[in-house]
């Protein structure tokens, strides 16, 4: 199961010890964690979305650039002599097919300073924006389209 493999990989990276006894302990603790997760019934397709694979790597640089841009914008407005803000709430449509896609979209909205997703309601997200520009950027729907692209066709 891929969850075990990922957990054991993390354990290996973090421990940095490769003697048999410690490796054995690592295997035991990994299996223990997976057993608990199975008992709690939290293991599913969405929990460790490896199937998104490389598509998300294409999305991350764009997201990082947006985060940087938004950071500069918010920092500039916050530090300016007059607080040049016009907060507002509005809804955007999330056209992702799966819950995971919507979660990625909502989290991306929140990660970009200037917009915070407040509530997920079916296929719409209630968003609070700090400025009109941030709101309009989001309304254009570029981020929505890109996340749909990350979701891919299954």
């Amino acid at each position, binding site marked *: 199961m891929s969850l075990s493999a990922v957990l054991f990989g993390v354990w290996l990276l973090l421990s940095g010890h490769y003697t048999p006894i410690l490796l054995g302990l690592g295997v035991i603790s990994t299996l223990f964690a997976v057993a608990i997760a199975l008992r709690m019934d939290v293991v599913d397709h969405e929990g460790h979305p490896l199937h998104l694979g490389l598509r998300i790597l294409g999305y991350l640089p764009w997201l990082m650039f947006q985060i940087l841009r938004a950071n500069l914008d*918010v920092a500039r407005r916050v530090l300016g002599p007059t607080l040049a803000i016009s907060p507002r709430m509005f809804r955007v449509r999330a056209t992702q097919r799966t819950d995971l896609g919507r979660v990625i979209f909502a989290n991306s909205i929140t990660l970009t300073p200037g917009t915070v997703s407040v509530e997920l309601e079916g296929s719409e997200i209630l968003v609070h924006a700090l400025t009109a520009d941030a709101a309009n950027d989001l309304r254009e729907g570029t981020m929505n389209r890109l996340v749909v692209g990350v979701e891919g066709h299954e």
Partner: protein
Amino acid sequence: MEIALDLLSWALLLVGGFFAIAGGIGVVRLPDFYTRLHASGVTDTGAAYFILAGLMIQGGLSIITVKLVLIGFFMFFSNPTSTYSLAAAAHRSGMAPLDGAGGPNKPEPVEKSLAEPIEPIEPTPTKPGGAPPSQP
């Protein structure tokens, strides 16, 4: 080369520190809870990533960098989630956001935008000064 990397990592650390302080000032200065979320977002993303990146350069290719990447990874997923649950909890408790430029509380400024279906692609015309993209 060594010096160049050091300079780069110092620059990253300084930029991160700048974002941290900017976010801190924002949290104190902004008028209501929802707007403060954005300032907190600045410290959670800008400051955190820049400082972690600066440290990664100092760490070089080693277990240190791997751990820093993991810290960044967890922050990347957990911060927006906790911000979201905070915002959602505040919203459910009936806290009304400020409307416009620090105007008075209006009960639900959202409802009217609910009535009209949101057009996804149409580039909303803004005021002349605010061409939507590419404003640093």
